[in-house]
């Protein structure tokens, strides 16, 4: 069922890519413009998606016979937990300018460690030390301008 749905998703994505590509300007002197490769890729998406969907069309029979795909509580919990690293990155993107890289990284590590039931003091200690090491290595040694945020304001 998943492969069938993924096949459909690729067909839709391919159609969108193809339509967007038709809007790219083509100079009259060029036979092939900037839309050629994106259009071919859109076509590739649609073709591959179609093959994938057709290959798993048997999954539809299960749906027709009343077999439904359900997620139990354990699966739902695992799926939500798998989003934690992605959410942590979103937090860094939104908060790092204001909080600074050091505090953001420490907060991310602390929360992620607690999510896997690390003892509070260990999580706190490791997060602070690791954040300091990463911040120091990247901003002082590799000269990467990591945002300083609040700590920069306080000097």
């Amino acid at each position, binding site marked *: 069922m998943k492969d069938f749905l993924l096949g459909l998703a690729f067909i839709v994505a391919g159609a969108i890519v193809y339509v967007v590509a038709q809007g790219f300007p083509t100079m009259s002197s060029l*036979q092939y413009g900037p839309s050629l490769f994106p259009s071919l890729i859109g076509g590739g998406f649609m073709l591959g998606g179609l093959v994938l969907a057709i290959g798993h069309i048997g999954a539809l029979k299960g749906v027709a016979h009343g077999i439904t795909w359900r997620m139990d509580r354990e699966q739902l919990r695992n799926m939500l937990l798998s989003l934690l690293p992605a959410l942590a990155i979103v937090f860094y993107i939104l908060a790092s300018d204001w909080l600074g890289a050091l505090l953001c990284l420490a907060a991310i590590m602390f929360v992620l460690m607690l999510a896997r039931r690390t003892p509070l003091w260990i999580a706190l200690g490791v997060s602070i030390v690791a954040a300091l090491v990463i911040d120091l290595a990247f901003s002082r040694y590799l000269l990467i301008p990591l945002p300083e945020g609040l700590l920069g304001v306080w000097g």
Partner: protein
Amino acid sequence: MDAFLQGLALVFNFQTLLVIAAAAIFGVFVGAVPGLTATMAVALLVPITFYMDPTPAIAAIVTTSAMAIFAGDIPGTYLNIPGTPASAAYVGEAHQLARQGRARETLGTNLVCSMFGGLFGTLVLVFVSPSLAEVALQFSSYEYFWLALLGLSCSIFISIGPKTKAFLSLMVGLLLSTVGLDMMSGAPRFTFGIPDLMAGVNFIPVMIGMFALNELMSFYGSRNEGRNVPAVHKDKVFSSVPQHLGRYWRNLLRGSSIGTLIGALPGAGADIAAWISYAMGKSRSKNRDAYGTGHIEGIVDASSANNSGLSGAWVPALVFGIPGDSITAIVIGVLYMKGMNPGPTIFMDGGGLIYALFIVFFIANLIMLPIGYIAIRSAKVFILTPRKILMPIILCFCIVGAFAINNTITDVWIMLITGSVAFILARNDFPMAPAILGLVLGGTLENNFMSSMLKSNGDLLSFFSRPISAGLGAMVILIWLLPVLVRLYRRYRGTQSPRTP
């Protein structure tokens, strides 16, 4: 001879040797941390190489990548998480051996095979590259187009699993490669008004997303803490190595040859080399059933292949200026920066520098033995550090590593988006390697196609008008037709066999 002596002097000085030793330790660290790839190690090195002379800069990159590829086996063996994608092929085998209390023995064999593979690939690089360069001088946009298409086609046909999924994965990579300003018209494509995207999508954040973030999301989506390797070691690092190599010397040679060949294919890299060698070793083994239960034979094949692939990847990078893998894609940038323009002329204009590069390869692979031994002895940290502490640290390295490429938060977004897409795709058995190769080679493919069409006034037949171009084109078409030909052959054999008594 003067150039060779010049090369020796460039390498055997205090600064370069110190850089090699430091790079080896750095490579071990990065390779051994799951999620940090050899490519990332090299990418992180680039800012430092700005301040170095050409020889130490290249030495740092070569040593780091060679060490990181080996060190990727360490977490693979202890945690069942490959430190680098190149270790993924045999991670299950190595971990099974570790569970039997043979972690150090496995890593010792890995280390010697990696060193042998690296030296084998270097010999090929030294002796084959200059002659290839003479052929490469004949190359124009037509040949480069076919070469890029050859690499992309190979990435589908040698991938593990359903080819449709490999094809779709490749399309994802190619789509990412079209982001940015079009080469011919300067029109922005899929940039959504974001200035950072005008220069295109950098492949390093994409790689971090596709491999590291994907792995992290899988970890948090499961409850497995994964400490099932005995904490007490009874085995020794090198004591069983002569016995294994004596028994599997054919595998060692085959793995090194396949690795070098696949590494030299533009677009394929150490990880694909390892997969192919492992698959080849399994198909030709007398103990096929033992594979997957902790069998050293597969490790000999694949671990020699990934390091030889690393050296092999430098062949197209130096000769054609086409990246053999993602590491050499970065290397090409560094070479330009240091005034060593990759391409056929590098062997004529390079002087002592090109010999220095070859010597550096030998030293980088030889230093692997002592530093690797120390790394294996101190690898117990992976058993002792729980993954619930290790993984958040790795995530932070990924965030900062992605940001560090261009010092822009856009790259962190790219890592997040590609990582999330990769997570969905990987859970549904889509291979990731074709997507990376699509991104790396997409620009080469499109730009050379467009240049050729301009030169020939849109005549498609011109792609077959030159001998090398026609040969490469025929090879690509043959690869595409191979599945059909194999099927026809099998059907023919099937109809023939019942007639025989």
